[in-house]
């Protein structure tokens, strides 16, 4: 298990990052298969000339504006050469206690279980970089319970902009990119 070095109020503590916890791990999953006359079909690509190719045949290459394979390209953010930030496993992760309400605007992408001792129950803001990258992701460490019953999770995602609205409303704050059973238990999360 990789270890994170958490820093809270000057005190350092080691947290073991356990596996990512997904919906599939808890409830199972649904896989869609496509069949014709009893044969299992595969999804691939149809080319303009009528040929088909399998997904495994598709490759990607980095090419420059002249159509040549780019050798040793440099990464930029804006006009400045980009600098990679080390993985969270290779540097300290400062924690800042924050109110639990911060989770209301936080869309969680990944959940990891954490083994950490000595961290009081609450919500702590941090950032997380599984691998070195140009932009660490926003993250929270959530500790609930205490003593032997304490559980800690690392929630990785991004905070959403949610303004208050009054009588006069501007709709521009919405994200332009975003595009049963009768008597089921509303707290049934398997929803298979």
């Amino acid at each position, binding site marked *: 298990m990789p270890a994170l070095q958490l820093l809270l109020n000057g005190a350092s503590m080691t947290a073991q990052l356990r596996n990512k916890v997904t919906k599939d791990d808890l409830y199972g999953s649904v896989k869609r298969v496509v069949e014709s006359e009893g044969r299992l079909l595969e999804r691939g690509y149809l080319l303009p000339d009528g040929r088909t190719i399998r997904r495994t045949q598709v490759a990607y290459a980095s090419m*420059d504006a002249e159509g040549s394979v780019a050798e040793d390209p440099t990464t930029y953010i804006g006009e400045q050469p980009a600098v990679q930030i080390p993985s969270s496993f290779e540097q300290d992760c400062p924690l800042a206690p924050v109110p639990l309400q911060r989770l209301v605007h936080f*869309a969680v992408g990944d959940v990891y279980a954490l083994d950490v001792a000595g961290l009081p129950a609450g919500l702590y803001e941090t950032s997380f970089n599984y691998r070195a990258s140009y932009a660490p992701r926003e993250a929270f460490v959530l500790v609930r319970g205490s003593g032997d019953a304490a559980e800690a999770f690392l929630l990785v995602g991004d905070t959403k902009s949610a303004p208050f609205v009054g009588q006069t409303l501007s709709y521009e704050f919405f994200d332009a990119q975003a595009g049963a059973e009768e008597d089921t238990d509303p707290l049934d999360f398997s929803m298979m």
Partner: protein
Amino acid sequence: MAMDKMHLEFGGKSGHVLVGALPSVRQAVKPVLRTRHGSVGRVRLVGGLQPRVDPAALSADELVRGDPELDIAMAGVTLEETMGAYFDPAAETPEPIGHFQQTEVVLDALGNEKERRPFQPRARNLDTVTPIKIARRLPLAQVLTMFVFKHCHQIVHEDSLSFDFLFNLAKDLHAKGEMALIGAGPKGAQPLVVRERGQPYRAFLSGEISPAGDQYRLLMLLSDQELKLPAPIEVDV
């Protein structure tokens, strides 16, 4: 601007309101690659391996005699206009097949098959004749530590009537420190499908009133996962 209608019930009244996904607070960082010849783009092309040959299964003699694992004729062909197609991977000359059945295979958490059923795309159910209802209320702190919220949508009014409607709902949730579990169907027990052919989610409303008391924030949080660890795997001894 992506906003959709939602038919919502609260306090014995129902009304049509607007709902939309929210942008991130942080601007996305977009790294670009450059060489001295300019920007570098990612190009999709055909790789050079024969799809029906497993290179690891070839003998040394076969590799010395020729290049059976390579598809020289297709290698490097750029793929600009393609369509998705289904075909029989075992066919000598794979051709697109138009008549097929889609089946969903339901697997348990250990990957064992539980059920097979015909695939039925889900329809969006936020704006049907039956309004979205509050199924139950739970303390805010309990909800935020029990569930994983994957998406955050904001609900806003369309006119002064719906302003009052939503303001009062947000005020009620704020005053009581609660979140409301909402759902579709006559009893509000069905999960919400926010987009056509989308995934089902359990949804909670969070309400807040501005410090000045004249504005509201009503958010719909979507979850398909409880915040918990998987059950330990039982091993028969």
